[in-house]
């Protein structure tokens, strides 16, 4: 479904709006790869049935799921995907419209499962790197609305380093988090009744989501990752290429500015976190130097001559002087 993509490029020759790029190009391939991986991991029994809607905005999940459940064998499970209502609630707060009603919330899923005499076995989020299906404020916003992000993502099609990193983040990090973090969920329903189990599932999810202070997110990821240290080790290897590090930095920097309590250092080795901290400080210095150079003369009426702010002529040299001397950024240190 392409109906919610933004309009075609303006006739000015300017680049098209970025949000229309949801689930297109390399991101569509990533989504497909992640879905195939999830199906392979979740639909393991012989009678299991998979219902995949690979549209950017899958239709109403109930309509797809009800008839499939009728045909499901006694020991089999139904694996299907849907838009995540928890995600839409987080990123597009307000009354749910038609798209919201087509999406799947965990609490509602639990009630549905009980009424249908089935059991919720898993709800796995995926697609966090894709952005927002309806141009809302995704957890990567505003980064994923930038042309810069589009350029970076385009390399997933050619650069294995960045593609492997993106797949790792989806498979090892996003899938370990509550369904609110990503636009899609992959759901497993088993063909036997367990009302108490369903209620418990919904309750655990509610707690996870309400507690998703960002620090907890890192904990959640680590808790699902088996032997301690392997997450950092695997991630560290993927961050060996410089191009992948820049890509990862963009993402983590974005996440920590969205959730100030999110501390990506929990996922990084000291060398990587040192480099990322240096880049963050440098970006902060740019902002500060620009602000300082502009603000010092605020309120001084005499700076205006012939209706023009004389101090405009200082900005260029002053920003350089502040970066060089106040932040002392460019001298090479020995040892």
């Amino acid at each position, binding site marked *: 479904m392409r109906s919610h993509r933004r309009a075609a490029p303006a006739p*000015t*020759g*300017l*680049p098209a709006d970025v949000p229309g790029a949801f689930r297109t190009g*390399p991101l569509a391939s990533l989504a497909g790869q992640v879905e195939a991986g999830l199906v392979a991991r979740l639909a393991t029994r012989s009678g299991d049935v998979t219902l995949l809607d690979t549209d950017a905005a899958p239709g109403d999940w109930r309509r797809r799921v009800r008839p499939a459940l009728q045909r499901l064998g006694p020991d089999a499970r139904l694996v299907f995907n849907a838009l995540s209502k928890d995600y839409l609630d987080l990123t597009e707060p307000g009354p749910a419209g038609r798209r919201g009603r087509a999406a799947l919330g965990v609490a509602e899923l639990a009630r549905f499962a009980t009424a249908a005499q089935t059991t919720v076995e898993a709800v796995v989020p995926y697609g966090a790197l894709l952005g927002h299906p309806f141009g809302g404020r995704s957890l990567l916003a505003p980064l994923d609305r*930038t*042309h*810069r992000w*589009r*350029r970076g993502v*385009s*390399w997933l*099609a*050619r*650069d294995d380093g960045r593609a492997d990193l993106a797949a790792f983040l989806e498979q090892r990090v996003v899938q370990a988090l509550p369904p609110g973090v990503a636009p899609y969920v992959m759901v497993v329903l088993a063909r036997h009744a367990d009302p108490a189990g369903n209620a418990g599932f919904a309750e655990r999810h509610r707690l996870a989501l309400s507690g998703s202070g960002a620090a907890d997110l890192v904990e959640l990821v680590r808790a699902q990752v088996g032997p301690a240290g392997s997450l950092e080790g695997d991630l560290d290897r993927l961050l060996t290429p*410089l*191009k992948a590090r*820049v890509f990862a930095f963009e993402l983590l920097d974005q996440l920590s500015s969205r959730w100030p309590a999110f501390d990506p250092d929990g996922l990084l080795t000291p060398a990587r976190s040192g480099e990322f901290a240096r*880049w963050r*400080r*440098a*970006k902060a*210095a*740019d902002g500060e*130097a*620009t602000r*300082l150079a502009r*603000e*010092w*003369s605020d*309120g001084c*009426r*005499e*700076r205006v*001559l*012939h*209706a*023009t*702010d*004389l101090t*405009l*002529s*200082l*900005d*260029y*040299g*002053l*920003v*350089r*002087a*502040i*970066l*060089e*001397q*106040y*932040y002392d*950024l*460019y*001298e*090479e240190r020995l040892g």
Partner: protein
Amino acid sequence: MKPIAVLVSLWAHHFGALEVFLESRGPVVLLVPGSAASPELLELAARHGCEVVATRSLLPPRYSPAKRLLPAAEALRGHLAGWEPEGVDPVGRELLRRLVAERMDAELPAAVMVLQSLAAARACYDIRLYATTEDITARGRLVAGWAASHKIPSLHLAHSIALADPYTVHARLGADKLAVYGARGAEGYLDLGVAPDRIVVTGNPAWDGYAALAGRRPQLRAELDQEYGLDPTLPLVVFGTTWMGHMTGLEPPGDTNAASLRAFLAACEELGRSGVRVNAVIKDRPANTSRGEATLTELLAEGEPKLQRYVRCTAHTREFAVAADVMVGVDSNYLVEAMLVGTPVVNLVAEGLAILGPTFDEESGVVEAEPAELAGSIRRLLEDPGFRAARLAQAAARIGYYNRGGLDGQSARRVGEVMAAMAVPPPESPSAGPVRRIRTLWGAVLARVAR
């Protein structure tokens, strides 16, 4: 009625746009902010029958900015002494105040002179447009501010494609409008939130001349072989050097010019060890005459004796872009020039500088290489015809995204037309009836020409 004038601060290689503007408008006075016009501008003006006036010449010969400077400087100094930047400790505060004071000493006298000379120019001329290649540097920014407060339309013709997102002082648009070469050049500004209707996509007038060179690869190569003593039997690999100006904290410490050059030399030596001999040309900037040679000599003296022969040059920029078999650069507009004329390019993703990227996208046919991958990337472009052809096809399909019209040679015309369309009198001109009618007529003629 005052003579009509435009205020021009364009680089000489953008003068093609000014030519088009003057052809459509007929002669106007060309005002140059400052004390002198370049020989190129004088020559152009002579051809078009235009008078050139350096604004400084409108001030009395014995002019001194002191009378207006002293009270302003004194007030600013007093203000500065009370500046308490938030979150800065006393030592830092003193340092910052000293840095501001130093910049005031360095810039304010010239700034006062520029503004007074502009005021004198405005008293003498009906200034219709400010066209500039620089709206960020000390004078460029000041003149753009002056034009804005006097409702004089201003056009910033980008001096390059902003392949790295504009940072610090660059992260704003001082002029009313920005002319970019292709959609790519708008991206950084759009990401910053600059309104799309302030950006116009024109192509780069300085690249119009490539159309005439693009088909002459064999000849140009032979001429360069002769000029620089290159081996005609070996491929030509050109490296465009890179520079940073301490304008962003993301610039790494140390000598970025030398670091990226070292990576190029290492890659060429690696090629040499694997039996691939090349003509390795380091295309440096003329501004780097003294230091560039020394840097190369120092780097060549490091380690083992060199297997390849290296040539450093600062001229024949275009010819090398056309004749190269592979062009290597660091986030550089020179790579785009090579793409324009069908030369395959490698963008060196350099330690430290990479964080300013990604400068290119995958669709553009650019090969991205970290230092350790550089030799392999050059070799593959030289030896794998399928790979080379595929990258060139990608670049050819995408070139209009970097430079509107590709090699159509019409960028100067497009910029000139934008200038003409902007340089019309404001609609609610307070002039009396007949004058207004003449101006309106002129505006209508211009609008037709610009269409």
